[in-house]
């Protein structure tokens, strides 16, 4: 009969099953490891007075000298700042600055005299500074197309360049977008006495930008051809990688007050030297009340003339030392034993919760 056969096979099946089950039972015991038992060796620091006071003290001791050094470095920097947007408006136009700047017939030339307050070692950095100018505005900061700048084949890619994408007849603008369109166009010529101080405008932009972001074979086209002229015009015979003012301008600033490098002067300036600056005051900041400043500055290892780090370090270092002393004093006046059972809430109120 079939049944005996089938019984045989089914028995065989269960015979296989049983040792397997037994094996499983034996391996049910979790494998021991320090990890699964959560018994890894651990270091458990707690905030003892000694530890905390020494941390604060140490931080203070390190911070104060760093602060002093930073402050000295910042003090070493000599900086000449000259605001010229108001001063360059002719006296008869002070009530109508906007009219002045928008009227192309009025000459925008202007002369400023700067006095060097301290000896300045070359290289001297020439910056222009704009105030209340929102390069970081969302409409503005996105209005560019990097692909177009990088590759001449992609000149037609003007997405996200709104509202400066194409000319009225639909030709793509290179470089497109609001940022390029509003390129800063004031120019400066420096003279010390009769001697002309040449401003070196080479290498003012990031090397990486020149080499990778702005291509050598992309030339400006259809730029500033529309009805509305924004800022500077570009020479369409010079590739973008050599238009360093544009490259600098297109590294958008994150803050509404910013400086951009105009060029470098490789001449040492002496104290009380007078420098005359002949400038073209073309750029419109009058409509929104922005300031324009011309900045001549030297630099140190820490950067420009910025006291903030030095003062912050001094203050923080001082506070840390003060806290270290205060904690020590507090501990001496009011010593508390750590790990006292009496502090346990249930020991204080034995009745429980």
């Amino acid at each position, binding site marked *: 009969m079939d049944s005996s056969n089938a019984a045989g096979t089914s028995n065989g099946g269960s015979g296989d099953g049983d040792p397997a089950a037994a094996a499983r039972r034996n391996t049910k015991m979790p494998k021991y490891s320090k990890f699964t038992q959560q018994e890894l060796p651990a270091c458990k620091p707690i905030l003892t007075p000694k530890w905390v006071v020494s941390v604060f003290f140490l931080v203070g001791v390190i911070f104060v000298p760093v602060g002093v050094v930073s402050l000295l470095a910042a003090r070493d920097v000599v900086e000449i700042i000259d605001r010229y947007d108001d001063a360059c408006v002719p006296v008869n136009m002070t009530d109508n600055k906007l009219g002045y700047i928008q009227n192309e017939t009025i000459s925008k030339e202007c002369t400023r005299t700067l006095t060097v307050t301290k000896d300045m070692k070359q290289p001297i950095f020439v910056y222009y500074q704009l105030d209340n100018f929102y390069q970081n505005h969302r409409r503005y900061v996105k209005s560019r197309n990097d692909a177009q700048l990088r590759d001449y084949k992609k000149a037609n890619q003007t997405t996200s360049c709104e509202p400066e994408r194409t000319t009225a007849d639909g030709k793509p603008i290179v470089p497109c977008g609001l940022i390029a369109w509003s390129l800063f166009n004031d120019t400066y010529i420096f003279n010390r006495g009769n001697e002309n101080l040449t401003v070196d405008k080479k290498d003012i932009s990031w090397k990486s930008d020149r080499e990778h972001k702005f291509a050598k074979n992309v030339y400006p086209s259809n730029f500033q051809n529309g009805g509305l002229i924004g800022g500077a015009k570009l020479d369409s015979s010079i590739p973008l990688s050599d238009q360093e003012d544009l490259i600098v301008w297109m590294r958008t600033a994150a803050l509404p007050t910013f400086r951009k490098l105009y060029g470098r002067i490789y001449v040492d300036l002496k104290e009380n030297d007078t420098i005359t600056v002949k400038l073209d005051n073309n750029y419109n900041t009058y409509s929104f009340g922005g300031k324009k400043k011309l900045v001549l500055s030297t630099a140190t290892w820490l950067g420009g003339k910025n006291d903030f780090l030095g003062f912050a370090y001094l203050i923080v270092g001082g506070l840390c030392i003060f806290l270290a002393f205060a904690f020590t004093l507090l501990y001496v006046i009011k010593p508390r034993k750590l790990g006292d059972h009496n*502090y346990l809430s249930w020991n204080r109120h034995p009745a429980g919760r």
Partner: protein
Amino acid sequence: MKRFVYVNDESCGESYCDNRVSNTKYTLWNFLPKNLLEQFRRFMNQYFLLIACLQLWSRITPVSPVTTWGPLAIIFIVSASKEAWDDYNRYLSDKKANERKVWVVKDGIRGQIKAQEIHVGNIVWLHENDEIPCDLVLIGTSDPQGICYVETAALDGETDLKTRIIPSICANLSSDQLGKVKGVLECPNPDNDIRRFDANMRLFPPIIDNEKCPLAINNTLLQSCYLRYTEWACGVAIYTGNETKSGMSRGTAEPKLTAADSMIDKLTVAIFVFQIVVVLVLGFAGNIWKDSNGRKHWYLMYPAEGPWYDFLVIPLRFELLCSIMIPISIKVTLDLAKGVYAKFIDCDEQMFDRETSTPAHSANTAISEDLGQVEYILSDKTGTLTENIMIFRRCCINNTQYGDDSGDALKDTRLLNAVSSNEPDVVKFLMVMALCNTVVPIKSNDGAISYKAQSQDEEALVNAASNLNMVLTSKDSSSAEICFNSSKFQYELLDVLEFTSDRKRMSVVVKEGGSGKFLLLSKGADEAIFPRSNPGQQTKTYLEAVEMYSHLGLRTLCLGWRELEEGEYKEWSKKFQEASCSLDNRECKIAEVCHSLEQGINILGVTAIEDRLQDGVPETIKLLRSAGINVWMLTGDKQNTAIQIALLCNLITPESNGQLLSINGKTEDEILRSLERALVIMKTTPERKDLAFVLDGWTLEIILKHSMESFTRLAMLSRTAICCRMTPLQKAQLVGILKTVGYLTLAIGDGGNDVRMIQEANIGVGISGREGLQAARAADYSIGKFKFLKRLILVHGRYSYNRTAFISQYSFYKSLLICFIQILFSFVTGLSGTSLFNSISLMAYNVFYTSLPVMTILFDKDMSETTVLQYPQILLYSQAGRLLNPSTFAGWFGRSLYHALVVFLITVHTNAYEQSNMEEISMVALSGCIWLQAFVVTLDTNSFTYLQVILIWGNFVAFYIINLILSSVPTLQMYTVMWRLCSQPSYWITMALIVTIGMGPVLALRYLRNVYRPSAIDVLQQIEQTNGPTQTSRNVESATRIYLDQLLTDLRRNKGSIHQPLLSDSVASIR
């Protein structure tokens, strides 16, 4: 509604589903839509989808849509693939079951088909050890008596063998006839009750006459059980596929939400509201700036007239900018963390029960935090607190108590003498012990007899009887043989009047082989037997014996017998047959008929069975109680036994320090009065005294009907309660009451009667014990012994809660930090909604840079397990939710705001003027956040293992490596930025400044609090440090065990004196 099954006849009858079993949730086609739909039922996912959709609108999106779509897709893919994997495994196991070969007989021809091809009405042929493929009605077995044995462990978790018998109508069918039998079964529509099957069956001529035969559950073979010790059996398929009883009782449990989870949800909603407010305010202000200022800035080229939705653009931009306030990764992070907690529980060596070799297991991986917040433990007694190993200890026969001196009746020489001298009462007593049960003797090959029983008590009685020379040697459905002092006696088993929890007794009717006398043998609870005793008999001594035994914590059973007249039996038997045949209300009718026979019983004696306390129960309860957890005992046992066990296991304190209030009474009024009195005493007694109340099931029923409110108040006041004589439903009701008041309850039990309570409670813990695995299967956690509960709660629960508290709040902290920086930045961008950070940084910040360090907290322990077990009071911190609540969250919120200010202001000031280009500032700010969060995690970590160090600082190093690599890709915006920054000294000086200003105040405040206003956690950490790690937790456990063992023996010695005053002083001592 009924279904008619035509045996072996596929032509007639309705068609029912085939036997294809399907446990899968999805099919290949509906997986994607169904799973997506399911995931989008969650609010968080809907929210993120909305955000992601908004981001597709390039006019408003601050960053690339990838920042939301990426993580969202990852989250979806992760949970979908987990579902898919689970479902695929279910499909595979279904397939294996469906394609298994089974033997069926069709028109007398036997053939093999796939299990899924079985149809209702087919005759299925099974062999020994086969798994039963669908629900069958047994019609034939290899056993001449027509019985077979099945193992039902897969169905109800009970490991003992069950006997199944063929219906009387099929008794005389030969195996050839079986294949050709025709007939009809009338059975109820499929349901999930595995203990009930009220049906009947008729066979068609020519085989047999046309009589209706009743069918019950013991005529069935249910799907997923195994056939054992029977060469073959065959049956008619009645329910197939997913309509079988096991298929119907499969259900998906509702997912439980932990208290911590709901707190996180609340906080999420709060943050959401905050976000809306911020968005509205900034959006409004942004629109004003645009109108008043924006148009003057010619280089922005604002059109004079925008589209109609122009006023919405800026608010929506801010909405997108702020959407990171709610961390998209929190769900995934928490799920991952919970999975790890569960793994830790599964792997815990110290919760591994070596005796039964059961490891702890967490079936529900999502609720570990709740363990740390338990406020009420509701525990079953038998099998949970006690070992559920029944040992026959004492007995009282014919007014003589045996076993009083030694505590073991089996060693009592008087009893042994009585046995050897054939004293008639003792012999009868032993005969009832051996016969009045449903025990199955199984002879092994070497001739030794072992017993398989459904009830531990019965097994104990039969074993005791065999030790007293009354050996049950063999038994089948109709006869039993016992051997007393080496002479054999045959009995014909006529009827079994089964045990039910309502009847609290069982009886058998037997016909003595030699004399032909009909005997009724009964055993049951005292209150079920004494009222039915022969009125002429003196029961006083038995009552006293019962009283005394239960004071000793023993379980008592009364045995009795009666001789029946043949006529009386015949008449009754007919009625019994009728009642067993009835289709509806059968149980009640049977009980009635049984009742009529069980009258005038001659009491033979009382047995007392000991159920020993489990190892480590008293100290565990003590520890849990000092951890501030209220422990209630819910048992089906008698009040006295329950109180004694409660005393033994430290649940209640003896008089002078404790008081036991008994709530009882004969009438409703009395009960309610006694409840009010108890309430008054509860309120007025000073807290120091341990008060407990005790009530029984009947009282509870009345109280719940009339005075739910007072009882709820009493429940809230009482740290301890003993509830006896509880039905499974009442246990669940009590859990329900505590839950409605808002307490977090944990129910622990081991048997099928605890399943409802376990499922009802916030946390269900099952003891994988002797009463089967039913409770363990239904539970969220299963452990081998009650004593592991303390580790489960105090160690795993507490750590889990602490860790979840940190992870969740930290997730919000880091999201808020980056979001606040974005908001602060928007103030210098003319409120236009520019994002300071680029898309890559934002996405990596949430998904990568900040999610790895937070994982270190999974290995963090604020204090060692030893300390926690030494100072269990510390559980209060997690229990009361002190680490995750609105005020701690406010602390994190404030910290993120402060840190955002620090990072932003310092960045803006150090990188002013010529260094203020977007990419550099953004990277400086991002590095500032990374530096700060590394220190935040470090400061909040309590114990550093090498894992923490690697994860926190490795992540820190990884941040620089990743960004340096990204800075080398020319096409990215951040090309060369990181290289440039790393070479500037000012960058590093700035970072040090950010960390010092950011962390200095945090450190100072934490120090002051630690030293001058320490929390208990701080103090214990300090104690741990100053005392050093003296003992490992294993040592402590053994030390306390020795101490407690001593205590226990003292207690046992004084037992007699303890129980008396305890109840006499209570409110209602008038009984």
